[in-house]
């Protein structure tokens, strides 16, 4: 019985704090993206001649943990398959945050564009159930500062 109460408290905490954190994070992401909208990012491998300048590697990485509630829902989803929507927003946040951190670094260098942008994802916990369920996203690219 105590196990069940403990579990429900964890689930409730996970839901409340997870949702609060997610909403706050999305607000911050949207605001910062608007701010950095004029810093251009492309996946093109070579810098076109019209944009050439001083090049430097910039990168941004972020690690975001899953909350208890989302982890439980995703576990249930494992039984029947389908879209793991509780993980979708987690990865979306991680991707956008990594891009933003990369752009912030590029802006600090005075760059006007980033080329050859790549995203990489790593699961921190892998298959180990005992560690935290967290995801890392790294965004990196070549920032070009006009001469």
């Amino acid at each position, binding site marked *: 019985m105590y196990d069940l109460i403990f579990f429900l408290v964890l689930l409730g905490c996970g*839901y409340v704090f997870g949702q609060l954190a997610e909403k706050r994070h999305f607000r911050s992401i*949207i605001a910062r993206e608007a701010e950095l*909208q004029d810093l251009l990012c492309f996946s093109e491998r070579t810098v*076109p001649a019209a944009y050439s300048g001083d090049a430097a590697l910039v990168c941004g990485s972020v690690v975001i943990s899953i909350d208890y509630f989302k982890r439980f829902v995703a576990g249930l989803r494992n039984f*029947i398959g389908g879209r793991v929507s509780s993980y979708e927003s987690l990865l979306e946040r991680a991707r956008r945050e990594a891009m933003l951190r990369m752009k912030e670094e590029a802006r600090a260098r005075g760059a006007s564009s980033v080329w050859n942008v790549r995203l990489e994802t790593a699961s921190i916990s892998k298959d180990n159930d005992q560690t935290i369920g967290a995801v890392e996203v790294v965004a990196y690219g070549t920032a070009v500062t006009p001469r």
Partner: protein
Amino acid sequence: MSDYENRPVPEGINISPSHPLKEFGLLVGGISAVLLTGVLLLALLAGHLVRYVPFAQEKALLSGVDIGWLKDDQNTAHQQKQRYLQALAERLATNMQLPPDMSFSLHYSPDATVNAMATLGGHIVVYQGLLDTLPSENALAMVLAHEMAHVRQRHPIVAVGRGFAVMLALSSLAGVGDGAMQQWVGNMGMLSMLSFSRAQEEDADAEALQTVQRTYGHVGDAAAFFEYIASRPQSLETPAIFNTHPDHAARIARIQQFAQAHPAAAGQTSQPLPPFMQSR
């Protein structure tokens, strides 16, 4: 410069629009419904299959179970009561169509509980609390015949088999440890008294009435126990037998109906209980 631009990306294109609580509700509800159906089916199937377990095997199941009233009582007064119960049960047994390998072991408990119960292996326990409420041997015979009918119709093993199937299914899903399983197996003798269905009770009643009729030639006092239960004020503590034996008014009515259809011949009266069966 105009060849390259970053257009703003619309919000929400990478996320399913469903609310997390809605998904949670659907998943929990759907999976529980499937599990419940599966476990119920398994329980029903187990209940059918377990009837094929030989009675000797059923007896062996209870050998390792530690229940107080299953042990031999050294008290001579208790032994006398136990022998009387055993003799009465054997007399009743001659009037039941028993399979050749089926036998009964009657036990007496000095406890004041108003109850009698049957469990695995033909073990039947009668509590002193029950004996004190009964006006005659006929009334006791009805209760005994009822419990014996449960055993003959294999109700205890069916209940245990169902419980075992459910326990096995749930523990294999939830990964309950060995300890919980052993604890449950240890308690199953007690569990079996808890889960006879109303239909099983009715079947046992019907067979008990036939048996008492064949043994005594009439069913006087057959409803005595239920009438006693019905006459108790509601505020009193509910007897344990209530939990498994609902709707006693309907049962009294059925017994009286049977009694009217099989009236006692002149001179047939209820036999009193021997004085040594009373606690006082």
